[in-house]
């Protein structure tokens, strides 16, 4: 008997069985405990509440919303808001991070210093403090009457106004999808090896897809234009308020700016690390072949740096998506805030938290899956690399 216990495989199986048993005990115990506690407080558990109307409203929604709408619709609104804020935040953070990272790896010492100051400053202040700062700033802008004109933007304490297209929401969405496809498809055509022609012979096709997609997007926008009004709708002061244009609420702008600037500091470091990971030898080889600094950057250093950045970048993107939950600090109705209010109003704590977790899992697992695919597609082939 003792001898059997000394056998490696037997030991492994026994340990794993023990582990599963402990997990089962914890889960079942927790479940029973929760059920008893809930029934003693007369809370009906289950997802029936999803069909009930909420009776409260959201302050920001891309989709139509009213207090008569059921809970499940509000959860959809919350996820869309989170995705909207998250996507724009990631784009802004990536743009800022790209510039900061390139500044920090440039040979210009002033740019290096500016990049370093930026990272040191914004990376070391807690994100929630930065959200509060930007929120205080945008809510203390002058009233619409004295609003600041900043190019096409009008800044006021009611929000940031920008010129908008007089086009219906669904048409804008469809046009955005078409434009995104026009940008993404050429990238895929440039790299995939699944088609019969080699990627480098698809130049003309790539340009046609790009131009066609953008034209399609423009056509959709023109089709969806509100009849009898100008195509571009600029904000104008009427009475005490600004009318027309697109209003971006103070909550949304504060969060977007905070996530963009804070995320930019982190992404800047990732970009810097990516460029540092490119072997000096490859750069020297490019120089010795007579490639110009720009050609060396765009053909050699950037593609190699991107490969080094991607896995860490995926990590950072997932982190930033979760940072949108700070919406609750300034009252932006993101997914987390809607779940929090739901818990308060309906008492369905476990169900609502389950939905919250499932939602964020779905979003972030999708990001991870997309990045894994890209990673695999562009991974360097072979294992004999020397740099």
């Amino acid at each position, binding site marked *: 008997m003792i001898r059997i216990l000394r056998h490696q495989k037997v030991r492994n199986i026994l340990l794993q069985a023990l582990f599963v048993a402990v997990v089962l005990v914890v889960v079942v115990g927790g479940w029973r405990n929760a059920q008893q506690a809930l029934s003693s407080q007369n809370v009906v558990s289950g997802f029936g509440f999803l069909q009930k109307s909420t009776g409260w409203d959201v302050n920001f929604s891309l989709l139509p919303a009213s207090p008569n709408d059921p809970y499940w619709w509000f959860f959809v609104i919350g996820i869309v808001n989170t995705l909207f804020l998250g996507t724009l935040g990631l784009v802004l953070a990536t743009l800022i991070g790209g510039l900061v990272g390139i500044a920090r790896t440039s040979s210009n010492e002033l740019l290096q210093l500016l990049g370093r100051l930026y990272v040191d400053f914004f990376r070391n202040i807690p994100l929630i403090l930065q959200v509060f700062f930007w929120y205080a700033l945008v809510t203390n802008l002058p009233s619409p009457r004295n609003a600041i004109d900043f190019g096409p933007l009008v800044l006021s304490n009611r929000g940031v106004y920008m010129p908008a297209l007089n086009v219906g929401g669904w048409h804008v969405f469809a046009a955005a999808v078409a434009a995104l496809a026009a940008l993404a498809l050429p990238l895929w055509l440039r790299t995939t090896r699944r088609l019969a022609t080699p990627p*480098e012979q698809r130049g003309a096709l790539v340009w046609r897809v790009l131009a066609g997609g953008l034209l399609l997007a423009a056509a959709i926008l023109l089709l969806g234009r509100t009849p009898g009004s100008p195509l571009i709708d600029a904000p104008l002061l009427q009475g005490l308020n600004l009318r027309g244009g697109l209003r971006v609420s103070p909550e949304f702008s504060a969060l977007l700016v905070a996530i963009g600037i804070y995320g930019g500091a982190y992404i800047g470091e990732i970009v810097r690390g990516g460029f540092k990971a490119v*072997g000096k*030898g*490859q750069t*020297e*080889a*490019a*120089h*010795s*072949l*007579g*490639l*110009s600094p720009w*050609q060396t950057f765009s*053909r*050699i250093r950037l*593609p*190699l740096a991107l*490969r080094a950045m991607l896995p860490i970048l995926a990590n950072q993107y997932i982190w930033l998506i979760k940072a949108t939950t700070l919406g609750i600090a300034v009252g932006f109705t993101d997914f987390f805030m809607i779940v929090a209010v739901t818990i308060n109003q309906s008492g369905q704590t476990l169900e609502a938290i389950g939905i919250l977790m499932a939602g964020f899992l779905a979003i972030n697992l999708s990001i991870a899956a997309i990045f894994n695919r890209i990673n695999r597609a*562009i991974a*360097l*082939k*072979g*294992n*004999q*690399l*020397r*740099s």
Partner: protein
Amino acid sequence: MADTHPTNVPAVQINGMNKFYGHFHALKNIHLTVHRGEKVVVCGPSGSGKSTMIRCINRLEEHNSGQITVLGTELNDDVASIDGIRREVGMVFQHFNLFPHMTVLENCVLAPMLVRKTPRAQAEAAAMRYLEKVRIPEQALKYPGQLSGGQQQRVAIARSLCMEPEILLFDEPTSALDPEMISEVLDVMVHLASEGRTMICVTHEMGFARRVADRVIFMDAGEIVEEADPETFFQSPSSDRTKQFLSQVLGH
């Protein structure tokens, strides 16, 4: 390519060149003339400045004083003349430095297409010719990481040749290779040497030096100590330092 520069100017002329790293005097008053079509082998103990010297010729390193003239153009801060010289001077590195994200063929056609504006079809045809010359045309669509060290170095040689350079610099091309792969690279280099291109090789391969060099240069502590044809260099070197080096390299 041979017609773009008058044939009477030397390929490389270095006059009183000095190079410092901080306070370290890496190259001391270097004088060297390499004629068109000449094969020069540079040898010497590690740290003697051999690599630094040839890296100054295509300005991967900047010299601090003195003059370097390549094919009649002086190397200075003028970006256009640096670019012009780099087009005419190919370099093969110790660690190959292939572009790992491109196939062998793309490695070869990149510079001709971007720098010389050669159309793709023409660049690919030329690349395949040079890959045949280095005896690996069948690897054209593989990635560098899928090749052995010796194969990678032969690709690197083909990549340099695709720019049709007047001058080829070799910076210890066999030092990072396993012993059984050294000969495949040296064979290619011997073959190249028979074609009239100017070659400057930093190497420890004394057999190669004896076979192809028109002149052997021995460097120590940042100075050119001895300069002679291979016969004289190996049979009757004049300096004691050369004798000592040769006895260490050839001694066993």
